[in-house]
């Protein structure tokens, strides 16, 4: 069964398969996130007790790649920087339909801020070979900075469009997309290769399927450490992070709480009374 030939040649190359890279992250399950605490010694997140799952927005990024692949055919590589336990989310992406997985994992990568994370991922993307498009989730549910996508693009020296809510047109080397704004959107035309960070508006991610999980058995996940990436220690992890946490303080609550008691009707009446007295309704 021949793959459908995409309608466009890429750069100067003769037809080669369109290559998509999706960057994903393992995050503490957002539904149990309230149990997470900060380690006061290392001042980084202690993630032990809460199960790690695929960052929700990354599912949308992967779905964008999978939908492209269904229409035009493509090879999808998934990259993730994380501890060895994060391997299961890469496997999950393979089960959802990605072709190849890479886990950038090394003690040296730990404690990275967005800058060092983006740098490491960019190096991993470069090592993987030529690519046409990089999809990322707009932000992770834990760090939630939104910085990694644009910084990867900068290190790769390619353009980026953040907060994609719709891909309007794939036209050879020029894509037209809608990028979300506060009230509305920007219509942007961008030349690929480029980085796209996606929002939940873009698509509806597919669910895991049993047959997808079976197919994933034959797909490879490769682990790359600092040796394989060939990057200096000072550029990655805690050492490579320009930002660091200096102090942790607790937030004081300055309010005196009154829990209203009594039957429902009484409580409601009391509450209305209090609010009226305070002049707020």
């Amino acid at each position, binding site marked *: 069964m021949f793959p459908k030939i995409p309608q466009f040649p890429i750069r100067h190359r003769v037809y080669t398969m369109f290559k998509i890279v999706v960057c994903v992250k393992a995050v503490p399950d*957002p539904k149990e996130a*309230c149990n997470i605490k*900060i380690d006061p010694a290392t001042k980084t997140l202690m993630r032990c007790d809460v199960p790690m799952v695929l960052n929700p927005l990354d599912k949308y990024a992967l779905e964008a790649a999978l939908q492209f692949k269904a229409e035009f055919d493509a090879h999808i590589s998934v990259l993730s920087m994380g501890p060895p336990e994060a391997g299961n989310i890469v496997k999950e992406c393979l089960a959802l339909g990605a072709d190849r997985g890479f886990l950038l994992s090394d003690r040296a990568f730990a404690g990275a*801020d*967005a*800058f060092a994370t*983006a740098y490491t991922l960019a190096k991993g993307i470069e090592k993987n070979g030529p690519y046409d498009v990089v999809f990322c989730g707009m932000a992770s549910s834990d760090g*939630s*900075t*939104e*910085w990694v996508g*644009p910084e990867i*693009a*900068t290190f790769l020296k*390619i*353009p*980026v*469009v*953040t*907060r994609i809510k719709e891909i309007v047109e794939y036209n050879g080397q020029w894509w*037209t997309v809608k990028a*979300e*704004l506060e*009230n*509305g*959107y*920007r*219509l*942007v*035309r*961008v*030349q690929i290769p*480029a980085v796209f960070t996606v929002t939940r508006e873009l698509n509806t991610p597919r669910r895991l399927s049993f047959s997808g999980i079976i197919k994933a058995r034959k797909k490879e996940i490769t682990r790359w450490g600092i040796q394989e990436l060939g990057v200096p220690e000072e550029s990655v992890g805690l050492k490579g992070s*320009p*930002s*660091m946490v*200096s*102090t*942790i*303080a*607790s*937030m004081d*609550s300055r*309010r*005196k*709480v*009154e*829990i209203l008691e009594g039957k*429902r*009707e009484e*409580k*409601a009446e009391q*509450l*209305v009374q*209090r*609010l009226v007295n*305070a*002049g*707020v*309704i």
Partner: protein
Amino acid sequence: MGKSRGPVWVIAEQIDCRILEVSFQLIGHGRKLAAALDTTVEAILLGHKMEEHPRQLFAAGGDRVYLGNDPELAVYQPEIYTEIIEKLAKERQPEIILVGSTAMGRELAPLIAARLDTGLTAHCIDLVIDGNKVLESRIPAYGGLLSIICPDRRPQMATIATGVFPNPEPDESRTGEIIPIEVPKKIPRRIQTLEVVREEPEGMDLESATIVVAGGAGAGDPAGWRKIAGLAEVLNAALGATRPAVDEGWAALETMIGQSGKMVSPELYIGVGLSGELQHMVGISGAKIMVAINNDAKSPVFEQVDYGIVDDYREFVPVFIEKIKEYQGKLKTC
């Protein structure tokens, strides 16, 4: 004493030739930072038909404005804006760069930070200069308040949402230097904003509302969410949401209140079915009265409000609405 420091920069943002409030707020706060560092405040403003605008930036507290005034700069063009700011920063060596946490800011700031090889802090709710003359960016996280610093590299960068800092009192008598910027010709133009399309926001504007009702994960389902919306309606309040509620699809992202959403400062805030997570609560500043309705008596939200109702909101809210309507009815008759 010691090496003189570069200025505090604010990347001002304009939309349709109007400078956003956050830009003025950052200049206002920037003055405090600059004073502690014994340096000046400068703003970069890129747009078209911007001749009159530097005046406003001076009035807010800026000492110098770098003005890019060109049709090509009318709307945000990532590569061009980044190139201009990067070049200027390498020339002028600012100590600090502040950017509003807007859609544009959240794309532009990391592009600049990566080009300048420096750190960038997101979701700041406060900025102070510490004992070592280093910028401390304070962000709420995981039950605490973190101070992030970028000790070695310069500039130190941060994004701040509108409403975190107050609007400065404009001083029309202030003036400053305007330095014109040219649009660089020889840069790759691989990306182009073709047009900016505005859509009317649904519902009331959260940031200016006097009463805000917010719903969270405890709403449970769309039917429940509608009950909460009903409460907002009867109070003529703006309806906001926490991140879980947005994730479930009950509320739009634009209505999210919190660290990575909107900052609100109503007189009355009522949180329904939410747990009072820090990331959300920091979005509410200076509310006169805060109320929480939650069926879990152990919920942390009850430590952060003035009045708490421990009840199933599905049962309580309809009764509450009744009582409010009764009260409103009485008002009309006297």
